[in-house]
């Protein structure tokens, strides 16, 4: 609300380019502007100053067809299961494609395809979405966006509130959408471990601005800076950080679990030789 005492600047100094085919993790503390940023990416919010370009087209430009942009850039909100409304799962997934004015045959095909992408059993399609479990509902909602066949998919905390099994499954779906579906993915997350495992690039938001942008290796080498922003490191990176602090000579690019498993035996025997009792 500009002009009222409730006015505040949500984002400032955010400049970035996301090339096709990248899997980007967007991480940041609560209130750091992650959700506001992703809503700019398909024109749901327009910037008061600055510009957002999708395939070279400015979203602030009146000539830009925002509906076409939203077809290309799919957005899955946080807790998307609360937006389900149809009588059956199939109809709900079909909402997007039918807004595109497709033929019934095409719609049915897309519904099946989208359901398969999120590992939804076909017999669930005839059920009411309100009868499903939380994890299933979430996957239905994601399928509803996938049925638009976007080339880029943005997900705001897709695994929030899921149990460990549902969490793992969601991460596998993300991975296969990127690797097999060839989609550009932007995943907002609180979990460093998830982002570290899946993404090739990490953006860190802090207080409404883009604080860091780089590969997981580059980001996790700045360990203390992350903790200052109230963000944790993945467990494996934290362990290697602490080992270095204890005087172990760990190469600076070691932070993944697999790398640690490889390095540790050598390290322990060396330290054992000099200090004894390791």
């Amino acid at each position, binding site marked *: 609300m500009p002009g009222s005492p409730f006015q505040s600047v949500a984002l400032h100094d955010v400049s970035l380019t996301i090339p096709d085919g990248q899997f980007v993790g967007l991480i940041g503390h609560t209130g750091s502007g992650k959700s506001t940023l992703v809503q700019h990416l398909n024109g749901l919010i327009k910037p008061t100053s600055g510009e957002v370009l999708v395939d070279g087209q400015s979203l602030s430009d009146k000539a830009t067809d925002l509906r076409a942009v939203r077809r290309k850039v799919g957005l899955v909100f946080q807790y998307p299961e609360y937006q389900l409304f149809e009588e059956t799962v199939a109809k709900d997934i079909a*909402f997007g494609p039918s807004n595109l004015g497709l033929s019934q045959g095409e719609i049915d095909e897309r519904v099946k395809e989208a359901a398969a992408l999120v590992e939804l059993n076909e017999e669930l399609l005839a059920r009411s979405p309100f009868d499903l479990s939380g994890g299933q509902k979430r996957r239905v909602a994601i399928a509803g*966006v996938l049925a638009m066949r976007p080339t880029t998919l943005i997900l705001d905390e897709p695994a929030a509130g899921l149990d460990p099994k549902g969490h793992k499954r969601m991460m596998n779906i993300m991975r296969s959408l990127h690797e097999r579906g060839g989609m550009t993915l932007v995943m907002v997350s609180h979990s460093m471990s998830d982002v570290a495992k899946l993404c090739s690039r990490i953006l860190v938001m802090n207080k409404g601005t883009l604080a860091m942008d780089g590969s997981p290796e580059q980001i996790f080498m700045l360990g203390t800076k992350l903790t200052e922003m109230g963000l944790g490191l993945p467990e494996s990176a934290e362990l290697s950080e602490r080992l270095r602090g204890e005087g172990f000579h760990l190469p600076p690019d070691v932070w993944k679990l697999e790398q640690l498993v490889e390095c540790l035996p050598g390290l322990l025997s060396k330290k054992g030789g000099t200090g004894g009792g390791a």
Partner: protein
Amino acid sequence: MALDITLGQFFPGDSPLHRLDPRAKLLLTLSMIVGVFLADSYPAYAIFFTYVLAAAWLSGIPIRLMLKGLKAVYFIIALTFVLNAFFGTGQTVLVRWQFLTITREGLRTAVFMALRLMLLVFGTQLLTLTTSPIALTDGLERLFSPFAKVGFPAHEMAMMMSIALRFIPTLLEEADKIMKAQTARGADFESGNLMARAKAMIPLLVPLFVSAFRRADELALAMEARCYRGGEHRTRLRVLKYTALDAWAGVSMAMLLTLVVVV
């Protein structure tokens, strides 16, 4: 897509108007409403407007914000004015064109009605802009509590009101979010004829109702878990107290009403 509603939104501040007891403000507003209908001359309205504008100035609320609230009723004011002007009866005819006549008396009533509506909106807006919804329901509960003896559920009514008020922003936020989510799936809320638009609301309303019921359920459970059982023997965090400020406001209102009746 911004869903902002000015009418009835609290504007935080620390002006004398903000510091008045909510009961006093409610009673003052009530007497002002009565007074508006007693006013029957141009000077009376001039005095009234001076009073309300002075109060608005005291409250420190930007006049822009208050005019924005008036926007919602522009149409009603214009309609009332036109209807009264054309259909008011009187002797002195000013304009006669076909079956339409405008008389001096009709015009006078029309102007008065328009002024009355503006004063009503301005005055009640001052109340809701300077009083937080919680203070407002607190005040209402206390004002109605004498009727509790004859079985009027004052506390329950106030509780329902505060819950309803409390959930307006939540539901607005939720509606905004669902609307955005459905827009991202290609929903179109803005174009088409009336039928098409009504149909386009279904993807918004169904999830909104589902979540409203879910929230109601959760809230009821949370209240019961904390042993809520209505107003009996309940003490309160903020005890309402009349101050000298309320007395002064009352005196000024009494003076205004006297003036309005006399002039």
